[in-house]
């Protein structure tokens, strides 16, 4: 048998049909659904008299629109159009008999945090969702990617996707990460290296000692931003950490089924002599705490660097860099640590898990946020919130001057009341620094949770290693 990559193995196990030209029907094991990209798909089903083929494999949770303030049970905290969208998910989930975590459920949260937490995401699965950050689930060695609403409808109706196979790319992070450098810095540094289109047409497998050393939470952070590198999906081969994370979760297999699953999961790795279409190797020791200066996730630099000169770039990137520097209100050549911050957002599907909150708390313990700073921590799920309270992290955040919110997507994309005003500058642990992403005219610097906590204390972008 010819050697295979992990992606090859998962792909081969899910091809339900292959046409002569290589177009496949890929069978989907788990379909996650949220309120923003699904209403038109359900409407499509109704208009054509179709139904959901596998409601038992379809999981719905509202996250994008929901307010994260403590008073969110009060309907007045939502705009009418947000309310309509959440109500539509509620109706669709009940009418089609989906697994459903409504806003009132303690398990509610960001779909990409709830899925793994409840054991819906398991190694070797195909997982899709009408959301580009579905890549997150690749941390379990599952093939997971975002789809559009037409494809959501296609999966609802047929439990398959029409796909052609992507190419294989290996991203190896060798050696050990230096102190103060996290999974977020790895994934941002990779995008800085490859660019936002570097992964287009590929599925990335992240490997190497530094990846192996990461917790499952850290691996989810790495895979989450595979999409920012343009890849169809990001993957990490499952290992003992993965199995340990999955064991005992509500929807993970039990008893003999667990043993059978484990036996198969242990075959899910890339064979030694597998073929890679592209390989990137980065030494962990070369990675520093990372920050974005511009309006594309590829605009990444180590915190010790300076805002670049637009003339340092080539081609279309020269104009793009000029536009970014102007939008961001920066000066070419200024040290990144001179950039003052007025808002700090810790949360999102990239960095809203318990480990992220622990990293932020380690920096914030016994400290206060800079006067005038607007700082919020938004846990990724109700269960993350509960755990953080149990561990005493919430008290650290509140004493430091952070708002301690309920779970949701919050300021990552500002579809809810959490937004930046024009010109406001935010250190954010989310995944996109696009123009207007966090609110019209808002300025976003992407960083790790520890770096965001450091900036909250000093009031400017700060090398967190100086505070450790």
């Amino acid at each position, binding site marked *: 048998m010819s050697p295979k990559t992990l992606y090859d193995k998962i792909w081969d196990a899910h091809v339900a049909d292959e046409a002569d030209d290589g177009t496949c029907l890929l069978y989907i094991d788990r379909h996650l659904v949220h309120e923003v990209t699904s209403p*038109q798909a359900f409407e499509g089903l109704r208009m054509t008299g179709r139904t959901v083929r596998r409601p038992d494999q379809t999981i719905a949770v509202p996250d994008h629109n929901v307010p994260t303030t403590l008073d969110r049970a009060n309907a007045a905290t939502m705009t009418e159009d947000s309310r309509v969208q959440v109500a539509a998910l509620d109706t669709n989930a009940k009418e089609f008999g989906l697994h459903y975590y409504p806003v009132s459920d303690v398990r509610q949260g960001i779909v990409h945090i709830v899925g793994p937490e409840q054991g819906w995401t398991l190694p070797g699965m195909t997982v899709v969702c009408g959301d580009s950050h579905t890549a997150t689930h690749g941390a379990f060695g599952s093939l997971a990617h975002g789809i559009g609403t037409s494809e959501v409808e296609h999966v609802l109706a047929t439990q398959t996707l029409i796909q052609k196979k992507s190419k294989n790319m290996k991203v190896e992070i060798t050696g050990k990460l230096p102190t103060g450098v996290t999974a977020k810095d790895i994934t941002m540094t990779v995008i800085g290296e490859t660019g936002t*289109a570097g992964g287009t047409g590929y599925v990335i497998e992240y490997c190497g000692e530094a990846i192996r050393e990461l917790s499952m939470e850290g691996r989810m952070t790495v895979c989450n931003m595979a999409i920012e590198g343009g890849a169809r999906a990001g993957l990490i081969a499952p290992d003992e950490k993965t199995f340990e994370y999955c064991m005992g979760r509500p929807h993970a297999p039990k008893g003999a089924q667990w043993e059978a699953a484990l036996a198969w999961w242990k075959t899910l790795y890339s064979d030694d002599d597998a073929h890679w279409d592209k390989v990137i190797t980065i030494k962990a020791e070369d990675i520093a705490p990372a920050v974005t200066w511009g309006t594309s996730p590829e605009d990444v630099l180590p915190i010790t660097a300076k805002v670049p000169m637009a003339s340092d770039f080539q081609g279309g990137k020269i104009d793009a860099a000029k536009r970014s520097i102007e939008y961001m209100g920066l000066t070419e050549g200024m040290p990144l640590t001179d950039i003052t911050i007025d808002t700090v957002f810790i949360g999102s599907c990239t960095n809203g898990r318990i480990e992220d909150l622990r990293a932020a708390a380690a920096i914030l313990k016994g400290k206060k946020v800079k006067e005038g700073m607007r700082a919020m921590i938004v846990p990724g799920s109700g269960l993350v919130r509960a755990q953080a309270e149990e561990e005493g992290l919430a008290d650290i955040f509140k004493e430091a001057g952070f708002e301690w919110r309920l779970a949701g997507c919050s300021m990552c994309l500002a579809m809810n009341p959490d937004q930046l005003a024009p010109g406001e500058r935010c250190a954010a642990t989310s995944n996109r620094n696009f123009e207007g992403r966090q609110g019209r005219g808002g300025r976003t610097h992407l960083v790790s949770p520890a770096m965001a906590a450091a900036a909250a204390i000093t009031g400017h972008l700060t090398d967190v290693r100086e505070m450790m």
Partner: protein
Amino acid sequence: MNKFTTLSGIAAPLPLINIDTDMIIPKQFLKTIKRSGLGVNLFDEMRYDDDRNEIPDFVLNKPQYREAQILVAGDNFGCGSSREHAPWAIADFGITCVIAPSYADIFYNNCFKNGILPIALPQEQVDILMKDAEKGANARIEIDLEAQTITSSDGEVFTFEVDPFKKHCLMNGLDDIGLTMEKAAAIDSFEASASQARPWV
């Protein structure tokens, strides 16, 4: 779905790289539960000021491009969020063809589900068509999907690649779901064998 066969139209130049789907349709317009009506908000934050007045310099606000049916843009068009509201907004405005050196994966696939043809061409050829587009309403670009050709206003012809299955669906306005349902037997049989092989799923 609307068919796409040939198109002769005005092309609007948007010479920016990495145009993301947040730019194409900002988040506040994702709260709709319909697919239609988003054209007025296409490129909303570039197109209108804070008081909702049109920004005259933005290409789609210029008189010669208000009826544009083609968009010529930079590398990595449609990156970011998977929101299909982006192609919905583009189609609702009346644009049914995008020409750029490259596209983000999800956006590219979403176009074909909405009667939009995204054409990838080498940078040099996009540069030529960008110049053509900058000439305004007198410069019509012609696209023939069957022949896989683009003809510039000067009569220069470029050929482009497109996946044969996607081309077939676009030319005939076919519904993917209907096509897949014809293969229900294959799906049933896969499902039965997968539930034996991986009963824990």
